[in-house]
């Protein structure tokens, strides 16, 4: 059974909406800059913030408290609304549909604003009530209330592969006949919690990130949200919806190596990509472009490339990391990069690994300058999370 993508929406450091993303990709314009909205002392660390304040986002959504203070929920709702409208759907038909949202700090962005006060009051009274939206599920619930109603709502939380895994559950539900349509993706705003968390691991770069370049020395954290409307071929045909692309394969595997590092030979990434190929019924040589996880840490980039070379021992397909554009949008990255992959397929280009000048492996170099007029058929899209939660999607051109 074919899983069609019939709509998509995106919010990232490159702006709000699919068109903003396409323009920035074509112009090789990075969204990484200095921190403007996040309340942190680490101003020296570059980041990819969505270019709008909480108040501006709330105005766009006409959102009230508490949503107006929940950045993860707001950017999620904006991206999901775009995807739903793009698919030609109105809220009243969503009643039979499913929302699967990938997030990890959903709720934390709000909690940390109220935590100090609650701590002072020993979690009594009003200060405790302010913390009731402290979990991922509540964030998804509030997002659903801004876009739905939906028949079913759930949240995947596998750190940086959350959005990719949301799409995998969505596709499996459609294949099993449990849904005709699933809105799947992820959202993550920057929080002081994970900004500092990544910083304690000493994997944040003080310069704009350079994935796959020999100077690569860490991640820039970003924020964003993206959703795809996944739909059974039959449902799309019935209502005359045209597919933007096809989600033709996917794989989820566990590196089972370390809580925050990837194995040297990239066993988890290798298994995830292999499973995706098998589920799509494709051979490695059918893949025309790999949108890598490519965070810019030596550990990730080297093990990911090792895994790629295990699958493509001869000629490696075009590959790049688009984290130089968007920064690492953590839980949302799988969906953000799925949208980028679909744009690449539809507009026949390969986005560059920005700032990659001296590739770590000159014999298997990434695409360092955006290539236009390149016909792509199948794109592999990698997302790897803490704990070795590795997933790969294959997105194919709609015939």
């Amino acid at each position, binding site marked *: 059974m074919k899983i069609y993508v019939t709509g998509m929406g995106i919010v990232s450091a490159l702006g709000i909406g699919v068109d903003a993303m396409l323009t920035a990709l074509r112009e090789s314009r990075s969204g990484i800059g200095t921190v403007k909205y996040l309340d942190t002392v680490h101003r020296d660390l570059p980041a990819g913030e969505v270019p709008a304040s909480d108040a501006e986002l709330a105005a766009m959504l006409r959102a009230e408290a508490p949503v107006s203070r929940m950045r993860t929920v707001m950017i999620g709702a904006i991206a999901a609304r775009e995807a739903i409208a793009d698919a030609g759907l109105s809220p009243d038909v969503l009643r039979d549909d499913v*929302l699967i949202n990938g997030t990890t700090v959903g709720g934390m962005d709000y909690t940390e604003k109220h*935590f*100090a006060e609650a701590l002072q009051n020993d979690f009594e009274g009003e200060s405790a009530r302010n*913390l009731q939206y*402290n979990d*991922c599920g509540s964030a998804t619930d509030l997002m659903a209330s801004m876009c739905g109603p939906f028949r*079913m709502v759930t949240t995947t939380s596998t*750190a940086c592969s959350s959005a990719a895994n949301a799409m995998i559950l969505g596709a499996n539900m459609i294949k099993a006949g449990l849904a005709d349509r699933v809105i799947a993706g992820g959202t993550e705003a920057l929080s002081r919690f994970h900004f500092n968390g990544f910083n304690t691991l000493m994997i944040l770069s003080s310069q704009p990130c350079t994935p796959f370049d020999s100077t690569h020395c860490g991640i820039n954290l970003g924020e964003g949200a993206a959703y795809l409307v996944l739909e059974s071929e039959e449902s799309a045909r019935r209502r005359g919806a045209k597919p933007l692309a096809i989600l033709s394969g996917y794989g989820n595997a566990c590196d089972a190596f370390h809580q*925050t590092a990837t194995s040297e030979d990239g066993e988890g990434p290798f298994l995830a990509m292999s499973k995706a190929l098998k589920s799509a019924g494709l051979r490695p040589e059918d893949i025309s472009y790999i949108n890598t996880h490519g965070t810019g840490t030596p550990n990730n980039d080297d093990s990911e490339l090792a895994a790629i070379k295990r699958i493509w021992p001869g000629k490696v397909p075009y590959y790049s990391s688009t984290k130089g554009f968007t920064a690492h949008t953590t839980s949302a990255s799988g969906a953000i990069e799925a949208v980028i992959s679909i744009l690449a397929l539809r507009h026949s280009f390969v986005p560059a690994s920005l700032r990659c000048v001296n590739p770590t492996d000159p014999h298997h170099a990434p695409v360092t300058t955006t290539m236009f007029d390149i016909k792509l058929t199948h794109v592999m899209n990698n997302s790897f999370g803490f704990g070795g939660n590795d997933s790969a999607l294959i997105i194919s051109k709609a015939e």
Partner: protein
Amino acid sequence: MNKCYIISGSCLHDEEADVRKYVTPGEARRMCRILKRAVYTSFEALRHSGIECPDAIITGTAMGCMENSEKFLTDICRNGEQLLKPTLFMQSTHNTIASMTGILLKCHGYNMTYSQGGVSFTSALLDAWLQIRAGEINNALVGCHDELTDAIRKIRHAAHPEIAPSDFREASAAFMLASEPLGDKPIEVEKVIILHSPDPKKLESAITSMNSNVIFNSDDSYCTDADAEGICSALETLSAQANYMESALVVTRAGNSVSLIKLTLASPCGC
């Protein structure tokens, strides 16, 4: 289409787990409380199933590793954004539980974590159930784990003033699901449904259509993992009264979601 059976399980309520039965004292020392309980129930369920490395490890958790998250946040508030402890952050993400289980078992299979309040476990169960039925996997370790801290007890008390902070419960449960039944009283997971803000009529008709003679109702006021608690009591009752009870429907009301899980006592041959 394959069938999906619960072939073993382990449920903990508020008690501590002696995880050293399964891991070295060094490994145990490095684990936060929720991890100890999760690893204990997971390994118990695995041992009873006779399966060493499951095809999938799927976990539900409403709040994740709360103790570590709270400590990390407290450190930020008290000490500012300097000299924070990396291990607290590393073991704060929700997927710590399923991925740590994967690391300990060296299982490279499907690994997934859901966090949707009181239907987190049902979400994990739904994933395993549909993949086993589709023949994508033969078995799965499905768990649900949460921990309460003093702060969380107070936060929950603020939302439920009628319940004393000490009366909230925390659950840790793990089950092995497989396409092949095991033992003389096999229990099949026949149906798993999650509904979001269903209107009462729709919910009633969904419950009726499940055609079950016993209904276990649970809600998330005392325990966030209400669906897992519901399954634990349904399984106990089904196994104990297997002679005249054929099926049980676990209905969980949690936040805006309602989950329906239908369990059926199958004949030992699986036919």
